[in-house]
């Protein structure tokens, strides 16, 4: 009785509150006293459908040593009493830009002709590993880990062929500790270079055929030359073509950013034409092409991003034809929204194995969006597979990651309740044997703590490679939360401000603009000093530096 009451009480508290997590015990200058940990009295979900109800996970030297109901804990182990907690294999993200900063905008030199640009201006750099661009101190890596990810495959940013993937373990401070595997895949997109060939999807597809066939011939030429160069024309030095050799022999997979079903059809057409080993990634809308995906045999990484919930305005009066027409259109938007939320379930029941990709999703949304997918028919086991075993297999690391088994990397997620429940929170993440502990504190949803730094009207200027724009940011506190709007001289209609988050002087928020019926989001992060602000706008069209001043009249 008492217990039931307690549960109800907790439920009420939790329902009214939003959980926020904060890393408190990051690895600092001092090395931990031990690298042996015993997670005791914990429910061990070794793999989807494989559960030890009460047991111990012993890890040491970055590896899982023992998993079981009765494990002898060595004296040098730090014991973690995880009573009533749950441990899972550390989540694996199939594709992201974590730790890969956006490149600076560059002005194309006048002598670079649009018809014959050098590779670097054509967006073709398949020989460059993501490692080269990695900033191990980038906060996006920490955000991934806070969501439970312990491994991610990162790729360079760019256009047609931005470079090669690197698989990272989300622990450690420098590349030497983080890099698990370099050259894990070749990353490609159907997006063209700006103003030079290939500038469009048709250009990219033509260039793919051209490069691939060139590489196929050049590979044979190079091999012949290597075996006996006497009397033979020397092959050109061309690192771009050479980096495609393993693609032509199916030793290196090609991972395509294929957000929509149209992208998927186009990429599969290329694959059928050329025959490379394919992974379709960052899929936001793939269900219309599901059977084709299945028969292509491609690896599948769905985006866990979901569109904003579409709603029907039930207060609308249905008097005029116009009202009825609007209601019918709203209904279609809601039906379309449901297609997105049930995509993962459709793929799962259709027998297509998939992992997830963070490329265009926010790690902080992972749990929330997974719960929506589960509400719409995805089983918890299938969701867990998509976070662990499936991406491990797509990335080719099943032998070292993806399950809680002795001998695997010590990558673990420990949660306070079953992960797939509303009230669960992540208490520990182990990555490569390093422990990260999170302080779980309940914070009121309507908290506007420290809001006074940002509330008000700000005039700002945003500068990017394309020139300057200006506008007004207005943020108000209506007691229930922070909201507002932002104008910009390059966008006809003001955007709505949401997701305002404040940490001292650091403020971030999201602005949703609508242009020609399409929404796009701008992420703003600024540092506020009394009456001035300085920071950055991240837009789909590139980054801009922002400086603003408080409007003295408001």
């Amino acid at each position, binding site marked *: 009785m008492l217990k039931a009451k307690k549960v109800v009480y907790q439920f009420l508290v939790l329902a009214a509150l939003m959980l926020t997590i904060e890393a408190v015990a990051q690895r600092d200058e001092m090395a931990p006293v031990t690298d042996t940990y015993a997670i005791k009295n914990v429910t061990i979900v070794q793999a989807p459908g494989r559960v030890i109800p009460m047991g111990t996970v012993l890890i040491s030297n970055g590896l899982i040593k023992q998993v079981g109901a009765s494990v002898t804990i060595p004296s040098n182990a730090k014991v973690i009493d995880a009573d009533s907690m749950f441990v899972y294999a550390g989540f694996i993200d199939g594709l992201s830009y974590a730790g890969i900063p956006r490149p600076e905008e560059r002005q194309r030199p006048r002598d670079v*002709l*649009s*018809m*014959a640009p050098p590779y670097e201006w054509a967006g073709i750099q398949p020989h460059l590993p993501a490692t080269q661009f990695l900033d191990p101190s980038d906060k996006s890596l920490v955000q991934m880990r806070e969501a439970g990810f312990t491994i991610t495959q990162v790729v360079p940013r760019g256009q047609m062929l931005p470079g090669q993937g690197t698989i990272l373990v989300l622990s450690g401070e420098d590349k030497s500790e983080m890099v698990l595997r370099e050259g894990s895949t070749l990353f490609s997109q159907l997006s063209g270079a*700006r*103003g*030079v*060939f*290939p*500038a*469009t*999807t*048709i*250009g990219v*597809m*033509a*260039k793919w*055929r*051209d490069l691939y*066939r*060139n590489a196929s*011939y050049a590979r*044979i*030429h190079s091999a*012949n030359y290597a075996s*006996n160069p006497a009397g*033979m*024309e020397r092959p050109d030095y061309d690192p771009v073509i050479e980096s495609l050799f393993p693609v032509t022999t199916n030793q290196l997979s090609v991972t395509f950013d294929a957000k929509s*079903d*149209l992208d998927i*059809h*186009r990429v599969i*057409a290329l694959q059928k034409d050329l025959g490379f080993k394919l992974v379709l990634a960052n899929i936001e809308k793939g269900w*219309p*092409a599901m059977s*084709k995906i299945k028969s292509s045999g491609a690896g599948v990484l769905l985006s866990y991003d979901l*569109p*904003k919930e*579409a709603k029907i305005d039930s207060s609308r009066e249905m008097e005029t034809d116009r009202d009825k*027409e*609007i209601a*019918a*259109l*709203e209904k*279609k*938007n*809601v*039906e*379309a*929204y449901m297609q*997105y939320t049930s995509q993962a379930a459709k793929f799962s029941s259709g027998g297509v194995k998939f992992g997830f990709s963070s490329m265009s999703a926010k790690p902080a949304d992972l749990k929330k969006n997974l719960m929506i997918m589960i509400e719409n028919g995805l089983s918890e086991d299938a969701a867990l597979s998509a976070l662990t075993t499936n991406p491990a297999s797509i990335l080719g690391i099943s032998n070292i990651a993806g399950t809680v088994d002795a001998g695997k990397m010590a990558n673990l997620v420990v949660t306070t309740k079953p992960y797939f429940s509303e009230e669960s929170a992540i208490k520990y993440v182990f990555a490569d044997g390093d422990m990260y502990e999170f302080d779980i504190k309940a914070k009121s949803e309507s908290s506007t703590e420290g809001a006074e730094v940002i509330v008000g009207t700000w005039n700002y200027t945003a500068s990017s490679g394309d020139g300057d724009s200006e506008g007004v940011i207005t943020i108000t506190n209506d007691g229930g939360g922070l909201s507002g709007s932002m104008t910009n001289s390059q966008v006809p209609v003001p955007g709505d401000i949401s997701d305002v988050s404040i940490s001292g002087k650091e403020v971030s928020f999201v602005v949703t603009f*609508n242009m*020609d*019926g*399409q*929404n796009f989001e701008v992420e703003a992060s600024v540092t506020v000093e009394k009456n001035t602000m300085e920071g950055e706008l991240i837009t789909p069209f590139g980054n801009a530096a922002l400086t603003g001043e408080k409007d003295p009249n408001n």
Partner: protein
Amino acid sequence: MKKIKNSIIVLLCLVTTIVVGQPKGDVVIKGGTVLTVTNGTLENTDVYIKDGKIQRIAENIKAPSGVKVIDASGLYVMPGIIDAHSHLGISTVNEATSPITADVWTGDVINPYSVGMYWALAGGVTSIHAMHGSANVIGGQNETMKLRWGQTDPEAFRMQGAPRTIKFALGENPTRVHGRGNGVNPSTRMGVEFVIRDGFNKAIEYKKAWAEYEASKKKNPRAVPPKYNLRLQTLVDILDGKILIHCHSYRADEILMLTRVAKDFGIKNLTFQHANEAFKVAPELAEFGAGASVFADWWAYKFEVYYSTAYNATILTRNGVRTSINSDSGELIRHLYHEAAKTQRYGDLSDDEALALITINPALQLGVGDRIGSIEKGKDGDIAIFKNHPLSVYTVPQYTLVDGVVYFDINNDPDDMRVNINPEESIEPVILDENHERCMQDTEWIFNNK
């Protein structure tokens, strides 16, 4: 017994190549006035389409049980309209980065969600030639499509087996984009001719280099192949007659220029698109065997299009030039029958001659005249049915069928025919995404980046 039946089904599946999303229908269209275009007009005649093909054209055909019947009594039944110049149904129109982009192909970016295709069906159109734009001298390859609206797989829209075609462009567009926009050849009409000749000459060398490699490879397995080049390979395919040329052009002098270039390089199959001044060189075009695909009465939207006449299509037809009337527009495509009818107002063409401009003639220009463009036994069941004669100003499209399947029915025509819905799309304001003239789409950056 069941087992035998199953194995028969399996066998049937093996021998019939079924293309995903290209359903074939059975239907009898009863009692209409059938405008065959190639065999005159047949009053009170039935058309039986079986498995997507026209099976019989006769009076009083008894519909086999279970086969759909369309009552066309009092209606006009004509071949589905074919638009030889459209930019609907594709996501990209121009790869405007080079004076020659023969390697790109609009068929790579078929967009099943382009709602303009449904609007075209509502105007009796069943096939379109989805063309690359006119930014480049030798532009990209085009795609001949059937409007199987509602399908989501781009493959469903391809007209299987249609010959490859490619877009060329003369005059102001390529000189503006490349000469004035990018400071490279061509900036004049002379430069345009040079770009074509230079491209073909390089293609000849390229072909020769590969032929030599293939020959020497037989003796020497270590022979070094030439550098593969998809752009030059495509030009070789044009020279080998594997790709039909459709050339954006206006002025008579440049039209003659291209026929001379074609003669020099042994190219036989040429269709001039727009060709507003083609009437001035109609006998020369007839002698060459070139086609012309023109507007009924659209001109003066730029300098090289001032010298124009609504008699263009008639003069060309009377001189024996294979002529079609096209739209190049998401709006004009919805009433190509009116566009064809204008040749009767301005040139007294007969009904069959006027209808041929939007049916059999464009079909022949696209190399598919043996399959579509007229109501004949054995041809595809692509049909448009009208109330009142399609050349009358009072005509109203009623049904449009592709391969015997109804894709437009005026009595079942919901307001919102979009197939792809973005749940985040705002409901207001409404933005129509089909523009009037899209020939220069995707080239804006050239002019904005100065």
